[in-house]
């Protein structure tokens, strides 16, 4: 029979709520709280030999010590499997579950599993390190959570092959596995399109990255006094592309001084972008980066000034993560230089 140790918090152990969140870790023999549902799901295949109960505040405030103590407790039972949680949307509990499940797997080499709601802060922190089942956001989803966690737990304990996240119910962990689809791509695409057109549910094979949202900045009070900077993903660079910005999947951005430049010409600027027909931008880069008009506006007093530098990269298959990194860096420079507003042009 598979031996299981489970980790739960003070609330699920029925010790108490927030007022008991300070209690240090303790071991109880056998099943406690949510363990009952797991016991039922496991049947004769596995037994929960011990349950570790720890206050959420205690664990998070004494992270290193709590981790060590809980690891020692787990080690004593030498289980075949470790389950932490499920934590649903309880933040400190989720972080504790992710921390301890990861430590048990990495330091003791024991298969481990946890579960929580996708927006629990522990999810992003640990879903790539440990199998983490996606649960509902409250304990009302316990039955659903156990239904997904128990079979996956048994598979892990037996060392069986774990299927894709969508089949097993764990959160995607960034690992890609090649496999052959039963149907060819053209058929799958048409099937998906028909489902979409007839308003039925379909599952994309290429999910878009999650783009964050930011609150709009307040309006610029007086644009005639404002310092405006130009930024582009259209790949405009000085002729010859001195920093060798890649024509696709760019790994860097350029910062170029346009002090005194009144007009971008064929002789002085070009595009490094490999994802659109470069003829028009190479003949006149103002078509992508409107330096000529902003100089005119500057002269006429319609804007305060055009910032001395522009920032540029190639937005062609460039990773969202890279773009974010570029912008984080040059936005700091723009702020430090007292820029009031940015015009970002894209091709």
């Amino acid at each position, binding site marked *: 029979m598979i031996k299981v140790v489970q980790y739960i918090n003070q609330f699920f152990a029925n010790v108490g709520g927030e007022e008991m969140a300070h209690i240090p870790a303790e071991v109880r023999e056998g099943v406690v709280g949510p363990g009952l549902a797991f016991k039922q799901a496991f049947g004769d295949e596995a037994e929960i030999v011990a349950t570790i109960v720890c206050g959420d505040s205690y664990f998070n405030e004494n992270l290193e010590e709590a981790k060590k103590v809980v690891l020692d407790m787990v080690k004593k039972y030498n289980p075949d499997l470790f389950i932490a949680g499920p934590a649903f949307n309880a933040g400190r509990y989720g972080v504790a579950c992710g921390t301890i499940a990861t430590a048990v797997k990495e330091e003791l080499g024991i298969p481990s599993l946890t579960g929580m709601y996708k927006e629990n802060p522990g999810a992003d922190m640990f879903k790539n390190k440990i199998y983490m089942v996606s649960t509902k956001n409250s304990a009302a989803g316990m039955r659903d959570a156990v239904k997904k966690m128990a079979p996956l737990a048994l598979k892990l304990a037996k060392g069986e092959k774990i299927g894709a996240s969508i089949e097993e119910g764990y959160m995607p962990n960034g690992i890609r596995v090649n496999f052959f689809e039963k149907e060819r791509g053209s058929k799958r695409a048409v099937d998906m399109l028909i489902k979409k057109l007839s308003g039925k549910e379909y599952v994309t094979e290429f999910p*878009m990255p999650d*783009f*964050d*949202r*930011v*609150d*709009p*900045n*307040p*309006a*610029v009070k007086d*644009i005639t006094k*404002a310092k*405006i900077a130009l930024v582009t993903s*259209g790949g405009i660079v000085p002729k010859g592309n001195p920093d060798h910005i890649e024509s696709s999947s760019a790994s860097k951005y350029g910062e170029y001084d346009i002090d005194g430049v009144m007009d971008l010409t064929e002789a002085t600027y070009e595009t490094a972008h490999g994802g*659109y*027909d*470069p*003829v*028009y*931008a190479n*003949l*006149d880069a*103002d*078509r*992508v*980066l*409107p330096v*000529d*008009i*902003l100089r*005119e*506006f500057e002269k006429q007093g*319609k*804007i305060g000034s055009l910032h001395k530098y522009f920032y540029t990269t190639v937005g062609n298959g460039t990773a969202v993560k890279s773009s974010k990194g570029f912008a984080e860096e040059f936005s700091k420079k723009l702020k430090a230089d007292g820029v009031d*507003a*940015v*015009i*970002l*042009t*894209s*091709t």
Partner: protein
Amino acid sequence: MHMCTVVPISLTVGANRIVPTIAIPHPLGNPTLTLEEERDIRRNLVGRALRALETEVTGQTVFEK
């Protein structure tokens, strides 16, 4: 603020002030026109961008005019 031709992409990535432009390879120009006509178009679009920057918005806003 974001000047781009494919407005749905701009909306997807989360830009808050958006000015739609002419075409992917020449967002702020039109090579079929004379240089002066092209500058007129560009002047108009950049003017609209400045107006967008001066306008309070509460969420994603496309400045069509």
